[in-house]
């Protein structure tokens, strides 16, 4: 009997041992599953966080790149990253790549952002004003982005009209633009997403051409544009009598009109040319009445503008809060095409390095793709 019990006990012991080993193996596998899942999640978080930090860095300094892989310890893991310029899907983009390692698990994440277009923050739309706007006649304002040859650059434009006051779209005037990376074609009435009325300019609306370009912090202390125009840099001109201008305009064209009425206006203006066109006086009542001829590529900064019958590829910004006609633009048959390329070209004419960086309170990097 005792032998029989001994056999049973031994058998049970062997059975228990085998079962116990199997259980241990299962528990180990289950634990490994959990640990792997946790590690993958943590590696993903590390890679995502790294890319977001890299984007912040580029936002502060748009020229910042990391062409050679850099490895750093972060959040108890390790990450290797690069920031490079690349062409992806036929478009110039910034590529952010991060490979994170955590407990033997790796996760690679790649993100692409649009190449930042550095433009003065005051250019809020194809037309930016500090006064009521009326669009009449056959005026078309297209805030979608264009090249200097007027071809469309998708999903990178701005609003058609941005104003601190009101907008009245009448006649056969069509407005289009881009909002949050989505293009809206010319329409009447315009899609509300491409019109910004009753806006408040942070810190107060600019009061001079130099402040539109950012003021001293951006390399434009008061009088800088005027001094560039006087210097003749890149064909720049400074005149007080617009009839003496040479065409085509180039560089910085600074027309300083008297503030004495009714001599404060430039009538039937031929604006053919490119660069930065400034029509201004210290009373901010210098006026263009009838942009009558020519195609201008670049930035137009005018105190007061009535009637656009020509073509502007770039952007227009108006300074006066008290327009002579009660509103600006008015009856027109012209075409205004927003163009970051033309604006950038215009800024380069001043030979001042653009400093319009991205970041909080300014423009942001636009993320095109995120592969995780």
């Amino acid at each position, binding site marked *: 009997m005792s032998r029989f019990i001994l056999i049973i*006990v031994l058998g*049970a012991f062997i059975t228990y041992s085998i*079962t116990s080993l199997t*259980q241990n193996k299962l528990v180990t596998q289950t634990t490994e599953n959990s640990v792997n899942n946790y590690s993958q999640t943590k590696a993903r978080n590390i890679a995502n966080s790294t890319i977001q930090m890299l984007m912040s860095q580029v936002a502060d300094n748009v020229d910042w790149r990391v062409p050679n892989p850099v490895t750093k310890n972060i959040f108890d893991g390790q990450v290797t990253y690069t920031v490079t310029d690349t062409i992806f899907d036929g478009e110039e983009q910034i590529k952010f790549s991060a490979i994170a390692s955590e407990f033997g698990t790796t996760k690679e994440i790649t993100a692409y952002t649009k190449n930042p277009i550095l433009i003065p923050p005051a250019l809020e739309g194809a037309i930016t004003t500090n006064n009521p706007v009326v669009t009449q006649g056959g005026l078309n304002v297209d805030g979608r982005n264009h090249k200097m040859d007027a071809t469309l650059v998708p999903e990178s434009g701005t609003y058609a009209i941005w104003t601190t006051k009101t907008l009245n779209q009448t006649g056969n005037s069509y407005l289009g633009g881009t909002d949050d990376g989505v293009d809206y074609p010319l329409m009447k009435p315009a899609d509300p997403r491409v019109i910004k009325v009753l806006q408040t300019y942070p810190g107060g609306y600019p009061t001079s051409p130099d402040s539109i370009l950012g003021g001293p912090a951006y390399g434009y202390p008061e009088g800088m544009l005027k001094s560039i125009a006087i210097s003749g840099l890149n064909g720049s001109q400074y005149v007080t009598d617009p009839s003496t201008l040479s065409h085509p305009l180039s560089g910085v064209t600074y027309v300083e009109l008297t503030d004495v009425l009714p001599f404060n206006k430039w009538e039937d203006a031929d604006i053919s040319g490119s660069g930065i066109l400034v029509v201004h006086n210290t009373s901010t009542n210098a006026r263009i009445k009838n942009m009558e001829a020519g195609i201008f590529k670049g930035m137009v900064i005018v105190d007061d503008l009535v009637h656009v019958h020509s073509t502007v590829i770039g952007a227009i910004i108006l300074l006066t809060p008290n327009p002579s006609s009660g509103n600006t633009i008015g009856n027109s048959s012209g075409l205004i095409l927003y163009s970051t390329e033309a604006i950038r070209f215009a800024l380069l004419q001043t030979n001042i390095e653009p400093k319009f960086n991205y970041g909080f309170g300014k423009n942001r990097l636009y993320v095109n793709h995120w592969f995780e």
Partner: protein
Amino acid sequence: MSDWLDLVGSFVIGGMVILIFANLNISISVAASENLFSGIVQGGLTSATDLIEYDFYKIGYRNSGNKIEIADSNEIKFYSDIDNDGVLDELHYFVGDSTTFTETSNPNDFLLTREKNNEIPAASIPVVYFKLTYYDSLGQKIDYTLLSSQSERDKIKTLGIRMKCESADMIDDHYEAVEWEKIIKPKNI
């Protein structure tokens, strides 16, 4: 007389020892089976969740058109360049009917199927519960009835996934179950 007493006593004690070990063996066997099935179910679920996470985080990647074509409580169809090869792929997750899935003895399970580009199912996962919920940019749940419209589907910024798997066979009057729930915020939508 004492021999008889020894004999009876031995039988009683031996019988008790045998019963104890038999009971122990049965308990170990049941626990082992439960652990085995639980491990199998958990392994299957983690494989499935790896796949779901891989796909769902990429919703809308390299797609400038409509990102999500179908969004329902137990079905989703979306577009993404899932292989990062420059070619847009269509991913379709949908569930079958528990009555038509007879491969297991579990009457509650049904197949969660993943189809890529309308080809033969790229994966079929037996589940007993699968539910998708959709949230807008403010984190508010979007009603399923609204999601028949593309403009509403364009508002989807976050997806909630809840999934439950059970063992194919019954163990000790119950099915071993493992449940998984996750909120995913695809960055391309």
